[in-house]
């Protein structure tokens, strides 16, 4: 049965007027973008208060996006690890990841605002594909910025976006990965702000994005909580998700933020462990933990997974980390490859490399988790990564 959209949890509520979650967040953008952020904030606030908008969103999520996504018990791998393993199957969504939730919400909102064009940044290409999909559905034109390095790593997704009628532009600056794609998209947004909506792909950027994107993803946690209760009669002991910018994690966590018995775990790549090793920085329109050098230059993340190749994370996660409501740990590329293969072999589910980070953490922590019920967000499917993994494994 389709789940209604619930009210936001108390512990992951709205940020303050300036967009801060505790000390993190805000709206650190140039004056030309301030009005656009204010316009978006007003539009989102009004839309979300409008039951007809929410209903339209829910209908799209269900009828087009394929929600609700199931929660699957993984008995084989669970037994092997000595715990009860449940997967929230965002990999079964249309376009293959959780990203579609946010994109359908933003595209609907953009239409409501009278915008005719979408732009987006993408890392793995999943958010780009989702945005291209929504643009095709709603008859909007679309340009996606993608780091040149990522365009090579995720060539299939580049082709998918083009097939969907979207223009893909390479971001050539810096590390030519996700952070540079964000810079490019922000630059483009400034000059096209009149008719263009910037469809940001994670819980990051200037206010209202971190809050809005999380809100559009709360359906993950809302559904998962009820499904776990239906399956087990109890809440899970842990809710685990991978963290790049942190959108799939934020959506999952929102379902359990007010359940103090549920540990919230974010799995970051060792080469981009912002919550683990970061220091607050102001970049990409927000104050949040970032990997940076001693003077404040932002470092380049390095991860096997393009979707997590980001040196920072969303401000609400920084707040959850600082207040210790959520815990963040890192896993190495090797551990991720191991998890990628193990889940495929034992459960017949090929995870996205991003999602494999969450599995990798569970594998690593299995002794500590013995006998517990562990809910993992399977944020996406691994089709896009198969070729890359093949190349790595055959080396």
């Amino acid at each position, binding site marked *: 049965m389709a789940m209604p959209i619930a009210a936001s949890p108390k512990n992951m509520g709205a940020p303050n007027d300036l967009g801060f979650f505790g000390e993190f967040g805000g709206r650190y953008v*140039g*004056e030309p973008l301030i*009005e656009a952020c204010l316009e978006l904030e007003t539009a989102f606030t009004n839309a979300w208060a409008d039951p007809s908008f929410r209903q339209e969103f829910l209908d799209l999520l269900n009828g087009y996006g394929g929600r609700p996504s199931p929660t699957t018990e993984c008995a084989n791998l669970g037994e092997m690890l000595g715990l009860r393993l449940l997967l929230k199957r965002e990999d079964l969504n249309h376009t293959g990841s959780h990203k579609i939730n946010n994109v359908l919400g933003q595209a609907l909102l953009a239409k409501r605002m009278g915008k005719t064009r979408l732009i987006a940044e993408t890392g793995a290409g999943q958010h780009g594909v989702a945005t291209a999909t929504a643009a095709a559905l709603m008859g909007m034109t679309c340009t996606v910025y993608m780091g040149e390095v990522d365009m090579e790593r995720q060539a299939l997704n580049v082709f998918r976006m083009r097939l969907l009628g979207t223009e893909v532009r390479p971001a050539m600056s*810096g590390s030519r990965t996700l952070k540079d794609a964000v810079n490019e998209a922000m*630059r483009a947004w400034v000059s096209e702000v009149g008719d263009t909506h910037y469809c940001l792909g994670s819980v990051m950027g200037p206010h209202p994005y971190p809050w809005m994107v999380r809100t559009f993803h709360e359906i993950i946690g809302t559904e998962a909580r009820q499904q776990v209760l239906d399956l087990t009669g109890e809440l899970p002991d842990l809710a685990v998700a991978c963290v790049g910018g942190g959108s799939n994690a934020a959506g999952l966590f929102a379902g359990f933020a007010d359940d103090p018995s549920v540990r919230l775990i974010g799995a970051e790549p060792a080469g981009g462990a912002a919550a683990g090793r970061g220091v607050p920085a*102001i970049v990409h329109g927000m104050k949040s933990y970032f990997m*940076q050098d001693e003077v*404040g230059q*932002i470092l380049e993340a390095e991860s096997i997974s393009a979707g997590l190749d980001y040196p920072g994370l969303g401000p609400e996660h920084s707040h959850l980390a600082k207040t210790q409501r959520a815990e963040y740990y890192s896993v190495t590329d090797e551990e991720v490859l191991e998890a990628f293969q193990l889940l495929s072999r034992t459960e017949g589910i090929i995870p996205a490399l991003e999602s494999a980070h969450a599995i990798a953490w569970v594998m690593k922590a299995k002794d500590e988790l013995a006998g517990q019920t562990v809910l993992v967000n399977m944020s996406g499917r691994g089709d896009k990564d198969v070729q890359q993994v093949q190349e790595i494994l055959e080396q």
Partner: protein
Amino acid sequence: MSASMTTSNTRSLRGYLTERSASGRLLMPYVTAGVRGDWLELIDACIDAGADAIEVGIPFSDPAIDGETIQQASVVALDAGMTPAQCLSELAKREFGVPLIAMTHYNLVYRYGHERFAADLVGAGCWGTILPDLPLDVAGDWITAANEHDIENVLLAAPVTSDERLVEVVENTGGFVYVVSTMGTTGGRDTVDDAATVLARRVKALSDVPAIVGFGISNAETAVTAAEAADGVIIASALMRRVLNGDSTDDVASLVSEIRVGLDEAYGA
């Protein structure tokens, strides 16, 4: 020129610019610190060519408001090892005949520490800061720290800035209002938007604070157009483009001279 320079406890960037603008339009060239080995000489040459003040760019790894040219200049400077501390200490060893204004992204200031950055700016001959990604809503702490050292923090206004917000910008800015000529990133353009003139008029209608136009000014012609309703212009990318092309310091400075002449012919010296 140095007659209008005053000691640090009485200096005022706004006062200085107001006084200078009485007799003509102001010209503020921008130089990225460390863009090449002789960047300090480049500043001298710009001053000799008629600059009223200099914007010194401290390079940042993720310059989201900058177009291609300043991005490239930043990469070159960062690759050469330029840091905020080095920039300020190199500036501190020199005397310049005009005020300097540090322009950078806020993270570098935040990491440096407000208090220490403000103090070191004074030692470096900087009278003000331009931090485009620190809008007024979140600039309070920095403005307080800066003002204690008589550093004036310049706020920006954009063509889309609402009337209500423009009042706040004008009231809270230090030194001048940076009039962003166009909805876009920094970068030289062939023509300047009418938007610059419209916005400069809106600023002048609210206050006598100097209004200086930047973004997209590439030569004498665009400078003259942009300066029509404003008190002056900032030229950045067009200069850095020449530097990146390997032009000599004289050739770079000749662009400043051309603009100086153009402004003086159009608006009197």
